């Protein structure tokens, strides 16, 4: 019995090895014709998540449509800590000259890889550090969140609003602060509660957090996690209102309670990146988009939002675009009573990375 087994083992091994080698050498070239530019994008989750990742994925699809001779290397579910560097380097070895590491936590790995490959360009969404070949970009979402706050502040019936947020990253805190300030500007009685789940995606935990907030009498639920589906669904189920994020398509999960949402439509921006790399005009900078940019979109309003709220939102939007208004005008105190912005001053958008506090009237712990 044993002898038979070992012969069989050798034969099988030889067969497998033979096949592998044979096909390896007879394989055609990976790409039949040379693409003008290979772009690599890393996603932290699934591109079908109706949220953060899907927005990025659709962005590169638009880029590909606009620029047919760009080739795309795309990989999903890359964990932030362990494998991101290896994935980026593998893409570079495959010829990628533009890498989009599409998750906050990829920044440090990307910086390390960028140092090793100075002729490859990187564009990191939401990053706060630059390198000669690594630029960052994001849209100035606080202004958009301020608008959401206006709409929510006029729609809420209980004057209690809640946010389910992944991590207390400064940029997220800034969004919540702007939301609250916007709501307060049209409704002095509102309060906002924040619960952090501790991770970008954990649907059961988000569900528990959403329910915990609703148990507190919250009737407007906002969400800052990778996939807004869970929270929006729960809001709809418990007849609460919802504010979406990342992706326009999530509105269909809440036909009744949808207030509005902020979506990213990265397509044209990515097209611009690719063009710049191709014709050599790319430079490293921190691009902060605004409401006027083509990659930040306000979702259509749901049926529950009163018409006068919509008018207020549109007016304020014009103010933001024209520069007449600012998301964080002083005086502002944080929820521990410390004064953060003096009267007559504003918290500059360039310092969003340092905003590690929550505004007065927001119940939650950023630390």
């Amino acid at each position, binding site marked *: 019995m044993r002898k038979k087994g*070992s012969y069989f083992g050798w034969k*099988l091994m030889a067969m*497998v090895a033979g096949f592998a080698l044979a096909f*390896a050498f007879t394989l055609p070239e*990976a790409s039949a014709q040379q693409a003008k530019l290979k772009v690599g994008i890393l996603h932290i989750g699934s591109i079908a998540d109706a949220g953060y990742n899907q927005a990025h994925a659709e962005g590169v699809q638009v880029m590909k449509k606009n620029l047919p001779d760009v080739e795309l290397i795309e990989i999903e579910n890359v964990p932030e800590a362990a494998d991101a560097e290896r994935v980026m380097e593998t893409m570079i070895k495959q010829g990628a000259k533009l890498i989009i590491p599409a998750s906050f936590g990829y920044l440090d790995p990307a910086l390390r890889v960028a140092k090793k490959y100075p002729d490859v360009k990187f564009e990191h969404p939401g990053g*706060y550090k630059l390198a000669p070949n690594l630029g960052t970009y994001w849209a100035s979402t606080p202004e958009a969140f301020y608008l959401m706050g206006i709409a929510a502040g006029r729609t809420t019936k209980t004057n209690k609003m809640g946010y389910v947020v992944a*991590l207390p990253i*400064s940029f997220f*805190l800034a969004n919540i602060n702007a939301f609250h300030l916007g709501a307060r500007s049209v409704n002095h009685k509102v309060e906002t509660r924040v619960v952090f789940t501790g991770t970008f995606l954990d649907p059961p935990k988000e569900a528990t957090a959403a329910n915990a907030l609703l148990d507190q009498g919250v009737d407007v639920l906002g969400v800052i996690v990778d996939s807004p589906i869970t929270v929006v669904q729960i809001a709809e189920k418990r007849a609460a209102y919802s504010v979406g994020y990342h992706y326009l398509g999530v509105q269909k999960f809440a036909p009744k309670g949808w207030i509005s949402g902020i979506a990213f439509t990265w397509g044209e921006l990515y097209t611009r990146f690719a063009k710049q790399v191709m014709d050599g005009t790319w430079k490293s900078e921190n691009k902060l988009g605004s409401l006027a940019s083509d990659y930040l979109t306000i979702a259509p309003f749901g049926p529950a939002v009163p018409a006068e709220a919509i008018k207020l939102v549109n007016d304020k939007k014009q103010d933001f675009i024209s520069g007449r208004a600012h998301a964080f005008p002083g005086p502002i105190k944080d929820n521990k009573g410390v004064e953060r912005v003096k009267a007559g001053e504003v918290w500059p958008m360039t310092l969003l990375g340092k905003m590690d506090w929550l505004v007065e009237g927001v119940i939650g712990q950023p630390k």
Partner: protein
Amino acid sequence: MSSAGRALQLRKGKLASLARFGGLFGLAFVAFALVLLVFGKNPIRAYADIFLSTLGSAYGFSEVLVKMIPLILTAVATALPARIWLINVGGEGQLYIGALFATWGALNFNNSPAWILLPLISALGFLGGGLWAMISGFLRARGWVSETISTLLMNYVAILLLNFFVFGPWKDPESANYPQSAPFPDAAILPGFFGMRVHLGAVYALVSLILFYLVLSRTRWGLEMRAIGVNAEAARRNGIPLARYIMALMFIGGGWAGLAGMCEVSAIHGQLRPGLSPGYGYVGFLISWMAGGNAVGILAAAFLLAVITAGGDILQMAHRIPGSVVNILMALILFFVLARKAKGR
């Protein structure tokens, strides 16, 4: 039988078992190919890509080595206590605590030069993992809790402890409130070879294997351990300090895992962050088990599994399969080895 004849028999036996393993791996590869076919993917292309991307280039090979380092260390962490039938499933937790201790050293002695700092945090990493494992060893030596259970439970505590530190006291004030520690000073980063990511930790891994082999086969301690392995009660009655061996082996085993944690945080990430290890502790356990606690076997198994897990990237990039599917291949290899091994007992 003459010693030459016996040596030949041993060689034949080893070759036969090697061939048997090869056959089992082959079966697993065929089974995985079938799985891929069912989902409409080309298995030959997939395998070719995996092997080419990992073994077909210097970079790919270096990445395999990078993955092997923590795998070997955690495998030894399991294999050593296994010699006296202690089951250490806690490699993951020991790895995390080692990383924690190492981080403390790097952050608090950040002005020291590399030749002080690196040995310091290495020692701290070893100490951390070792102490963590020794808790389980102590509970077992006293007859209170089986080490299988306690090491498993301690894994969860370790991961939560790390999260506590990076979300709280050690959160880097410069990182926009994102949960990660301040970056390690350059002096605390394990240097790599030839500009690749393969780092000095490879030396640690090799040393652990060599020591493991030597101690077991050439020293008195190895002899006593084997005696315990055969019959613990008799060994104890013959004066071998059983409790001391339990604690010592858990400590040393855990120490190697802790060193793996230090390597990961120092050489690969450069800072402490959640999700430090994608399950190295558990895979190490499986490697040790698959290799029968044998040093050469550990090396081979670690190599194979490193190739497979590193190959997951290319599957996603080129074939649109979730990278997670390499877990199926790994599981299939284990299934076949497990199914076959028991019969031959």
